[in-house]
Structures are given as C-alpha cells and as structure tokens.
C-alpha cells in the first residue's frame, strides 16, 4: 500500500510535467495548426539558458532563472513563430512538421556542440528532503512539482476563461475568421499562445532538470510522451492534455513497477492506438469537424 502511494505520487509528479508540456503543445495546435515535433527539445533548452547565464554571465541562480525565462520567451516564443511557423504555415501541415523535426535536430546538435555533450547538474529550487506520510516516504520535490504545475495550469485556465485577452484567444482558436471580423487581433492572439507555450516549457524545464539532469538528448522521449498525452486526452482540449499527462505519468510508474520495465515504453503507445481508433477525439475531447 505504501509502495502504491509512493508510486502514485512519483507518477503524478512526472505526469504533471508531461501535462505542462502537453498543454503548450495543444495550445499551439489549436490556434495555429502547428504540430511542434521539437516540443521535447523546447523543454531541454531553457535549462541550458539558465546554466549558460550562470556560467558565462556570472549571474546568480535567481537572476539566471529570470534570464532563462526571457530567453525562452524570445527564442522559443517570438523567434520560433516569426522565423519558422509564419513563412511555412500557408503551405500546409506537412512541411512545417518536417521543419520542426529539423529544428529539433538543430537545437540538440547546437547544445551538444556549443555547451556540453554530457549531462549537467542543475541546481534544485528547494531542499531535496523526503517527508513521511503514514509510512510512505515521499520526496518533497515531487509534491512541489505537483503544486507548481497545478498552480500554473489553474492560472492559465483562469486567464483563458476570465480575462478579455484569454477569451479573445479562445475565439481565435475556434474561428479565426469570425474572430477577425469581430475586431480581435488574431495575429497577436496567436503570438500570445506561442509565448504561453514558451513559458510552459521553460517552467517544465526548470522543474524536471534537477531530477533528470540537463542533457542535450533529454527532449527525445519527453516530446513523444507529451505528444501522446495531448492526443490521449483530447487534442482540442486543454483539460484533456492535463488528464492525458497525469494518466501517462502514473501508468508509466505503475507499469514499470508491477508489469514489465522492458515494455513500459509500449503502454503509452497502446493507449494512443486504442484512443485514436476508438475515440479519436480523445478521452475528454469534443468531436470537431474534420475527416476522421
């Protein structure tokens, strides 16, 4: 029983990080039909911004975090949209998919070549102690990850539902043409979603790097899992991405512990195929008009 509790908490913590990444992924898809195959590398990169600021800029850790966030917003938000997505989106989805695949390679090789090829330690944001609740030993770190992720997603939900800008963004996602007619600055709203995505991946990066260390190849599995989480939960739903992320995190831990470590990687894939075949709109998704 205590094992189960520990596994659940660890799974929820991993799942919360998946959820953050998957939410960003979903937002990009909704507003601009961008399928970002480099999303995993987007999570890998901000940790290196922070490390570089400390190593080359001599900044203290909090300042470096801030610099890392600004760099992420600029590079993974603004530049990614202006340089890569904008010129290509009118050609359809496929060239952009290829381009983000190339971007993933570019970012990975760039970090490997210009920073380091081996895993880098990343300072934790808090003390790494364990606490014990009813016999189960739980890493404080995991609880904090869950807390921060919930807070971030709650804030995002509030922003989307309760503010004028957030509702304009929803309108843009649902019907860009009508939104434009109603005087919403569609381009700007799309830019906001790219900025939000950049913020989310930066947050995920800072949360995950103290545990798994910062390494150029970190994005490979992370991107795929976030991807699957987004589809399993429902591609057109922020809520769906959260559920998908948590589900995958918990399943991953439980399967590795109780079923088979060799095939732990296969479980999300079976889930993915089952969901796409039997419930293509995702567990929580709504059916939209499309040729499924």
């Amino acid at each position: 029983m205590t094992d189960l509790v520990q596994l659940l908490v660890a799974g929820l913590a991993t799942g919360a990080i998946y959820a953050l990444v998957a939410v960003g992924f979903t937002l990009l898809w909704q507003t601009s039909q961008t399928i970002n195959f480099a999303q995993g590398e987007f999570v890998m990169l901000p940790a290196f911004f922070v490390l570089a600021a400390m190593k080359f800029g001599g900044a203290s850790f909090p300042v470096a975090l801030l610099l890392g966030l600004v760099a992420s917003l600029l590079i993974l938000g603004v530049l990614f949209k202006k340089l890569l997505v904008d010129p290509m989106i009118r050609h359809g989805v496929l060239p952009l998919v290829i381009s983000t695949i190339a971007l993933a390679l570019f970012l990975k090789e760039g970090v490997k070549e210009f920073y380091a090829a081996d895993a880098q330690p990343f300072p934790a944001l808090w003390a790494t102690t364990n606490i014990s609740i009813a016999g189960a030993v739980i890493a404080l770190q995991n609880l904090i990850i869950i807390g921060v992720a919930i807070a971030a997603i709650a804030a995002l939900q509030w922003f989307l539902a309760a503010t004028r800008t957030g509702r304009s963004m929803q309108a843009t996602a649902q019907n860009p043409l009508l939104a434009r007619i109603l005087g919403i600055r569609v381009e700007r709203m799309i830019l906001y979603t790219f900025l939000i995505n950049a913020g989310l991946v930066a947050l995920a990066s800072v949360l995950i790097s103290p545990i798994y260390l910062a390494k150029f190849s970190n994005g490979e599995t992370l991107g795929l899992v976030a991807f699957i989480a987004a589809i399993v939960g429902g591609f057109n739903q922020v809520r769906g991405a959260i559920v998908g992320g948590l589900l995958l995190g918990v399943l991953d831990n439980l399967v590795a512990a109780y079923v088979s470590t060799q095939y732990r990687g296969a479980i999300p894939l079976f889930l993915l195929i089952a969901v796409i075949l039997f419930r293509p709109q995702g567990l929580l998704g709504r059916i939209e008009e499309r040729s499924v």
Partner: protein
Amino acid sequence: MTRARRLSGAIAALAVCAALVAAPFGLKPYGIYLLSLWAVMTIAAMGLNLTLGYAGQISLAQAAFVGIGAYTAAILTTQGWPFALAFVLSAALCFAIGWLLGYPALRVQHHYLAFVTLAFTTLVFLVLRNEEWLTGGIYGISGIPRPDVLGWSTGAPRDYYLFCLGMLGLVTLATGWLVRSPWGRAFMALRENPIRAASLGVDTRRYTLIAFALGAALGGIAGALYAPLVQFIDPTPFALGLSLNLLLMVLVGGSGFFFGPFLGALVSVLLPEWLRFTEGLYLLIYAAFVMALMAFCPSGLLGIAERLFRPAAKTDDAPATPAGKAAR
C-alpha cells in the same frame, strides 16, 4: 512530351546509369558503402513516396518495415535459407503487415494517421529490442551473409553495390510501370480528392490498403538489402529517427515526384558526409538547410527544378505542391 524531349530524357537517364555503374571504381570502401546505402534508402523512400506522395496517406511507419524486412532476411539467411527466398518472404511479410496497418488509415486521416504509424514504429522497435530469443535484442544479429546471384558472389563491397543498384533499377521500373497504370492513377485520385474518386467508382478502401501494403513491401525490400550490406544489425537504426529521415527524404526530394526519393536520399545520405569537414557542425548545417528548403520551397528540390524549367506551372495551386495537398 515531344520526341526531342523524350530522347534527351533517355540520354540523360543513360548517362546517370553509366555514372552510377562506374562510380565505385574510383572510390574507397566507405564511399562504396555510402552509395550502396543510398540505393537501399532510395528504395525505402520510393515506397513511402507511393504511400504519401501518390496516395496521400502520411506514414511514419516506413522505418518499421525496413526493420522487419532486415530482421526477416537476417534471421532466415543466418539459419542457412537461400537469400532469394528470404528476400521474397521479407517483401511478402511487409506487404501483409502494411495491409493490416492500412485499416487504421481507413478510419483516421492526416496527423492522426501520422500518430498511429509513429506508435507502430516505436512498438516494432521495442519488440526488436526486447524479444531476445528471436532478434538477439540489443546484441543484434551478426554474420549476415551476402548472396550469390546466379553464381556471381556479391561478397566484395563493389559487387554488392552493383547488386543493390540492379535491384534499385528493377524496383524503379516496376514502380514506374505502377504509377502509370490505372492503379497509380487511382492513387493520385485518392490523394487529390477522395470523395470525387469514390464517386467516380474508385474503390478507395481497397486502394488505400494497397497503397499502404505496396509502400511497406518496398520498405521490406530495402530492409532485406540493408541487412547483408551492413552484415550486422541491431534495433537502433530502425527507430523513429529513420522514419522521420525517410519522410524527410521524400519531402526534400519532392513528394509525389517520381524521382524525388532519389534526390532526397542523396541529400540525406551524402550531404551529412560531405559536410564532415565542418566536424561537429555538419548536423547543424544539415538541419538549417532542411528548414530553409521547407520555408522557401515546400515542394522539394524537384519542385524548384519544375519552377525553373516550367515557369507556366509556377502558381501555388499547380500540381507542383502535392505535399501541401497531401497534408490538407
């Protein structure tokens, strides 16, 4: 096509063939290996071009079929089966599995299909890695023999290259015949407008399955040629990376252009090698090149060529952008 054009086309084709046959005589073994790899990857990319470029079905499963083909050939030939039989079985097995994988394609489209096939590739990779009794797991299978063809031993790199080139020639002829046949036309109808195709009496269900199965079979053929080329296989080369790479070959060369895969495979196999003098930077430059190409010419290298030589077909909605159409 006028007679003069056809003639000049035939002469150019002959010249390219002659150059390809003569190429290994001035090359070191590694260069010959790269050319052989190019021939093998071109076959795999041609298969994907059938599925994606002609029939408009996005597939990220091609690496899995190359893997299945390679492992089938490797397991059988190391057990002492003749290569010809192993080769045919590889293609047949991939055809059958490709047919089955086509069923999801009947239900889902576009990026959803990409995700299903992506999951399939990763699953096949996991099976190759974990089922040690069959595939040798991470230790792989070594000592894969190169075949004798009608008494001609292809053991030496140059002989095996010529064998691969010959197979590429055969596959090219067969595929060329296929895309001109009513089947090929049905594939294109499927890509351009499935509903119209169905209303004109094309059995879209059957042709979708055939497109998948044929693409997969070519992947299997490429795999069966790849195993004796490297003589040692492990699961790593058949992971998702290869699928993405093959997709890249098709799009870089020009999706839906018959000779697109030849060019795409050339870029993908040889460009990184040519850029090796830049040392660690070569993958960076390669990635930047792909991004720039997709930004400025999403219909690929042959798309550029078509624009240059046929200015009349320059508009964006001309058939010069089948890739864009396939994606929509």
